[in-house]
């Protein structure tokens, strides 16, 4: 029982991270109809830039904000330079460009920050907390809190702000959005910035547990993509559901079968979903609904 609880906690911890990355996939998919395979690199940049800004002497909260803002800016610039020039916004070409872009971002991080794994302080120091007999690291609570905050902020953005409504409108019906005055291209740029910021939050939150490194983007990209596909790429809620579920599946597999299989779970999930239920668990209509 205690063992199960421990697995569930670990699963929900990793699952929250996957959820944030999956949200990034979903947001860009809604705006462009394409998968952004550089999404994992935004996760990597969040951790690396967090370490970088902390190394400059910034207090941790400020370093975190700076890292998120810088990653969002990189996401926007990435869209402006690599995605916007693509004629007609052909999703297949966007996908190829993001694959190339992911390699570029990884190499740039390697050159700027070096090949080492870099530590980041936990957001709060102190021993693990006890929850119903199971140990919960303080950083795990931060991960949950930040994920929850990001999801609520995103929901408020989409539901309550004019800007968020314009983003949704553009993804639902691009021409009509333009006709009411929405700058559809700017919305695509904004979606990359938003996706990058969410990836950065995930990378920052997990860095104190795993350390930051230039090469973690690709692996996280696969996990986040699997989570997004599992959810169905249809809505933010589905992305979060897919992320949490993938985290739990991994953790239970590692705990009850063999830790060696942990990283295979995402690939198995990806293949099974694509073969059996391509619309994902929570995707019904096959249409993006933000």
């Amino acid at each position: 029982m205690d063992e199960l609880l421990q697995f569930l906690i670990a699963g929900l911890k990793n699952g929250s991270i996957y959820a944030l990355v999956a949200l990034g996939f979903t947001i860009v998919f809604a705006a462009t109809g394409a998968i952004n395979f550089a999404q994992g690199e935004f996760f990597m940049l969040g951790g690396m830039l967090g370490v970088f800004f902390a190394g400059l002497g910034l207090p941790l909260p400020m370093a975190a904000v700076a890292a998120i803002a810088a990653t969002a800016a990189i996401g926007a610039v990435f869209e402006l330079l690599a995605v916007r020039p693509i004629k007609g916004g052909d999703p297949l070409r966007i996908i190829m460009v993001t694959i190339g872009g992911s390699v570029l971002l990884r190499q740039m991080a390697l050159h700027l920050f070096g090949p080492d794994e870099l530590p980041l302080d936990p957001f709060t120091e102190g021993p693990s907390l006890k929850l119903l007999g199971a140990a919960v690291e303080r950083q795990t609570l931060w991960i949950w809190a930040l994920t929850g905050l990001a999801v609520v902020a995103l929901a408020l953005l989409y539901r309550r702000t004019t800007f968020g409504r314009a983003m949704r409108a553009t993804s639902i019906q691009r021409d009509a959005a333009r006709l009411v005055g929405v700058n559809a291209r700017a919305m695509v740029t904004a979606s990359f910035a938003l996706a990058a910021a969410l990836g950065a939050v995930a990378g920052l939150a997990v860095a104190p547990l795993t350390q930051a490194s230039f090469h973690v983007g690709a692996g996280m990209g696969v996990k986040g993509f699997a989570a997004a596909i599992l959810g169905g790429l249809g809505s933010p809620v589905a992305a979060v559901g897919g992320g949490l579920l993938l985290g739990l599946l991994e953790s239970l597999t590692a705990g009850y079968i063999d830790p060696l299989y942990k990283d295979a779970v995402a690939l198995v999930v990806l293949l099974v979903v694509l073969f059996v239920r391509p619309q994902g668990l929570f995707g019904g209509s096959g249409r993006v609904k933000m």
Partner: protein
Amino acid sequence: MTEAGVLLELDGVHAGYGRAAVLHGIDLTVAEGELVAVIGANGAGKSTLLKAIVGLVGVSAGTVAYRGAPVGAARPERLVRDGLALVPEGRLLFGPMTVSENLALGAYGAGRKRKAATAEALARVHALFPVLEERAAQPAETLSGGEQQMLAVGRALMSQPSLLLLDEPSLGLAPRVIAEIFAALDELRAGGLTILLVEQDARLALRHADRGYVMRTGRVVLEGPSADLLADESVQTIYLGTWQAEGDDR
């Protein structure tokens, strides 16, 4: 029609999709306060004409001038600020969003001065189509066809345009609903709004319009006051013929 009163002027407009040319030199004017109809068979290029005016398709030759100034390569998101609104073919509503969200988005790109009057614009839309107020919290995609068309018109009106372009507002609707929508157009028109109406239903359009243009394969083949077009023999045989044969009376 005085030159000063011209709101929209097309001069030799060519447009199309990529290499497929659809419009071959369209000349057309709409004066302030007019209701002008463009009629023609399916595929004549009526929708392309409206898209060219708002910049959804590129104009390859000729000019589109709005209020005397060429709109050039202006994009639709800019034109709405200057008072041009299109109710597109097929309505293109934001289906999963509520009626009130759709209407709110209609005012998104209106100029700053007009935006300040958004509440009044909403009140006017609700007065014109009371059903939209009743259905405010409902997703647009759950409305009936007629209600969806009313929402599409209402959304366009939220930007408080000076010139309203409509693409086949009657398409697929029951006669009673069509009558309601055209009554609304007449009312808007009486309130001073200038309207360019594209319709396949020639008789319906010409009954409400001051003037009309008849299009065929990307060209204007006939133009004149509505009464003349309705009486014109070629228009009667080609565009009104089936209508009379059916003996339908809307």
